[in-house]
């Protein structure tokens, strides 16, 4: 037992994982660690060489236990330097060490973890939730790294291209005639702004019901806001945008905070109506249609005089019937998309994301064709369109071949914006 207590002093974790990577462990240990590193690198290894390295040829005399001596001998090394470490157990330190050991073991945990993330990892009640959270951080870290590498590569390529161009331009400095300056992005923004204002005045309302704050966990709320952002973007680029309403949006509520955080300064300049009021206060009840996948009524046509409501709710906890209950409570008409009528459904829930809903509704509004609109249903969820008639079948086939992006009406502003989006 006394031996055991000795070790609880200080072994610096990272040192064994990656020897040469200079790192900063929190607080004072960083300095200490690097000294150990240097010492173990410089002095220890030459002296304690692998004992039977040379005499391994006859299999009977394999030095099977030799490695243990080296492994154990590090003990004295640390004992000498184990003075400064604190005996009192900080749970944060303990969990950091645990994560480090998990990393050494090959588990999916992040390499670097901030104090804040560490605290939320500690806040996870169960072991599995801890692992889940750490895996999430691990994936996040990986994506970030990959992006970083890509960015660097791109920068290098750009640099090279610039150099080449510079060489070329110095050779022949030719004046060319242009009609426009290169200000496409700004022009497009302004044009979209104009259209947005027109939609605010004369557009068909589309309501996002934000009354689901209490049903969601922070993560779900974040993805809802991401989807809202994307929906708003799709709407802005359309030929004939909706007038978007964010109803039941409580000021300083979780939704509001997240939206303001994501939009930043742009939030106050958005061409949509955000209100704390409910949709039933703003519009006549009989013109409201609540869209929910649980509805028994199937939507047959898009009506231009109705006000469609989409619940901004990402439901990962399978709370079925929440939005239907809401509509029932307010005695509103409900409808669901005719997914089964037009698609051979395969897997996945019939709940679509908000941006998919937005694109489908926009498409319906502009073309009125279900086949066209339901292209925005993720391809993995269905095996194909139902065979309704030869004509529509042909249409479907054509759609399948062409990419969804390119099939927008030509000649509209859309085609430019789409291009920009793709770039």
């Amino acid at each position, binding site marked *: 037992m006394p031996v*055991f207590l000795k070790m609880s002093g*200080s072994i610096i974790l990272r040192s064994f994982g990656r020897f040469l990577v200079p790192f900063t462990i929190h607080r004072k240990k960083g300095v200490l660690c690097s000294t150990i590193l240097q010492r173990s690198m410089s002095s220890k290894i030459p002296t304690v060489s692998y004992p039977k390295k040379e005499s*391994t040829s006859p*299999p009977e005399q*394999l030095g*099977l236990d030799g490695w243990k001596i080296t492994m154990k001998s*590090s003990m004295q090394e640390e004992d000498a330097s184990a003075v400064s470490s604190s005996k009192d157990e900080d749970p944060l330190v303990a969990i950091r060490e645990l994560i480090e050991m998990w990393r050494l073991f090959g588990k999916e945990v992040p390499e670097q973890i901030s104090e804040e993330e560490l605290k939320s990892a500690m806040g996870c009640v169960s072991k599995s939730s801890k692992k889940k959270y750490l895996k999430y951080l691990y994936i996040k870290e990986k994506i970030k790294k990959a992006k970083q590498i890509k960015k660097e590569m791109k920068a290098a390529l750009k640099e090279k291209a610039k150099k080449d161009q510079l060489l070329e331009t110095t050779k022949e400095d030719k004046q060319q005639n242009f009609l426009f300056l290169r200000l496409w992005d700004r022009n497009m923004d302004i044009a979209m702004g104009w259209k947005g204002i027109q939609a605010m005045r004369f557009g068909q309302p589309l309501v996002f019901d934000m009354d689901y704050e209490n049903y969601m966990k922070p993560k779900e709320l974040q993805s809802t806001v991401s989807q809202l952002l994307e929906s708003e973007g799709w709407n802005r680029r359309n030929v004939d945008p909706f007038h978007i309403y964010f109803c039941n949006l409580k000021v300083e509520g979780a939704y509001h905070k997240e939206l303001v955080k994501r939009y930043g300064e742009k939030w106050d300049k958005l061409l949509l109506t955000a209100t704390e009021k409910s949709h039933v206060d703003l519009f006549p009840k009989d013109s409201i249609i609540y869209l929910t996948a649980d509805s028994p009524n199937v939507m047959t046509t898009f009506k231009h005089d109705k006000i469609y409501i989409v619940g901004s709710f990402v439901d990962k906890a399978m709370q079925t019937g929440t939005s239907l209950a809401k509509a029932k409570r307010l005695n509103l008409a409900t409808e669901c998309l005719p997914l089964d009528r037009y698609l051979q459904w395969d897997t996945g829930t019939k709940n679509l994301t908000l941006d998919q809903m937005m694109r489908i509704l926009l498409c319906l509004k502009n073309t009125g064709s279900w086949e066209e609109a339901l292209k925005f249903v993720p391809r993995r969820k269905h095996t194909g369109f139902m065979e309704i008639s030869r004509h529509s079948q042909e249409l479907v086939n054509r759609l399948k071949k062409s990419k969804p992006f390119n099939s927008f009406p030509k000649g509209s502003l859309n085609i430019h914006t789409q291009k920009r989006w793709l770039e």
Partner: protein
Amino acid sequence: MMTFCFTGIRSLPKLWKSNPYLSVGPGHSYFSLFLKDCCGIRNQQKWFSLKAVSPQNTKAVNLLIAKARYLRKGDEGSNKQVSSDSHLFAAGAAKKRSQMNTHREDHALPPVRNTIQLPTRPLNSEEWDKFKEDFKGKANFESWIISQMADCHSSIDVAKSLLAWVAAKNNGIVGYDLLVKYLYLCVFHKHISEVIDVYEIMKARYKRLEPGGYTLLIQGLIHSDRWKEALLLLEDIKKVMIPSKKNYNDCIEGALLHQDVNLAWNLYQELLGHNLIPMLKTLKTFFDFGKNIKDDQYSNKLLDILLYLRNNHLYPGESFAHSIKTWFESVPGEQWKGQFTTIQESGQCSGCGKTIESIHLSPEEYEFLKEKIMRDVIDGGDQYKKTTPQELERFQNFVKCCPPFDIVIDGLNVAKTFPKARESQVLLHVVSQLAKQNLQLLVLGRKHMLTQHSRWRKDEMKKVQKQASCFFADNISADDPFLLYATLHSGNHCKFITKDLMRDHKACLHDAKTQRLFFKWQQGHQLAIINRLPGSKITFQRIPSYDTVVQTTGDSWHIPYDEDLLERYSYEVPTKWLCLHRKT
């Protein structure tokens, strides 16, 4: 320290042993299909395998599949008899149902692992180097090969030679993951001295380990003289997370192995304190150890364990049941006699003739459950989710003013029992048969059943309404919660007819205790139609009259247990019992 010397093994071809997994040679593929045995016993799968040399041979394969299907059909015939004498929630019943309903295509190929041949003797570094060159794969060779060795339980000397090679390449350092997997092999082969060695190394190298390493160390150390250090490791785990029930199991086992009874019980209490459900193995260990202890206090604690099983609706396994029997029979002066038996339909033990506890709830339990169903299942925080307040009121008024019912029928479920017959006809058939027995009936349905339709004939529905009280909920309301409430409201004698197992409604109840109450009530009150043909006389699944739970009358114990070979679903109960009584 243990070192094995392999002498005389020189010829290389012998050194490579073929892998235990199915190895697929070129030009051949094994096509195997297996049939589940009719009794649903997993271990009795019959394997048919044949070599499909070429695609032309598919005919033969198809023939075999057809034959297998035919065999299974034959099995189904016998199933009919089997299913009629066991009740809906009897162990294995679900398995049987699933086999009756579906022709599962079980003839998929077993997963063929792409494995290499692992060495069977320690290799020297040159051999390892060569081995590594031959290896083609994305993963890190060292960790991949040791994982393979761990999977195949290679001898530790081979693993050790790998570590020695890694250490030699790497300035005497072996990675943590390699060490843990090596430790796994040591623990698996019960090489205590090696475990201790690795333990020393880990202590020297790392300040803290991850739970996997701790678990292995604890598992290894408890068999050694230094078993007390396993407890220190347990403490270390506690600093970051709650130890697993396996950790506790190992520590308790270690304590009992070294005769430290108090420590074992303390650890057991701690385990319960963390709200962990102990492994049945742990409890069995206490019983096994109890045979040698003649101590009242210890005996009482063992009886406490039995009560714990009762309260949590846990059922011992077959070997555990044997341990319990042996312990009871070893208690001096009390002359217990145990036998393995079954319970008759009347609820009497075939062994001693005593009546088993009734399936019916006590009045307090009944009221409690009724309230919970109303609050959690029907209301559930938002009345609009399953119904509307108006409808709920209409329903409550309806239930209040009607006389208590004898049978509540889930109209839609019953009507759809026979897919080929017309819905309203089936419903009428069931209702009129029951009405003849002078039973007060309630049929629950949805409003759409009343509108004229080719499958819902108005005249037949009228006849139904004449013979039974009916309540039709809105088309988008859930009807099951109403069924539950109407049955509960009518009183203990009232039963309900549906084939639905009501698992989703059970899940709406929040705590495990209420769920168990619900399950007990459900077992005692649910009638399920087992007829397979429409038009015949309606017969129901047998309702057990007794509750399947560990129980005592002081001088007798009745303990249901799980047979080793029978697969029981979580919502089923065992059918085999251990009957213990004192000789008088």
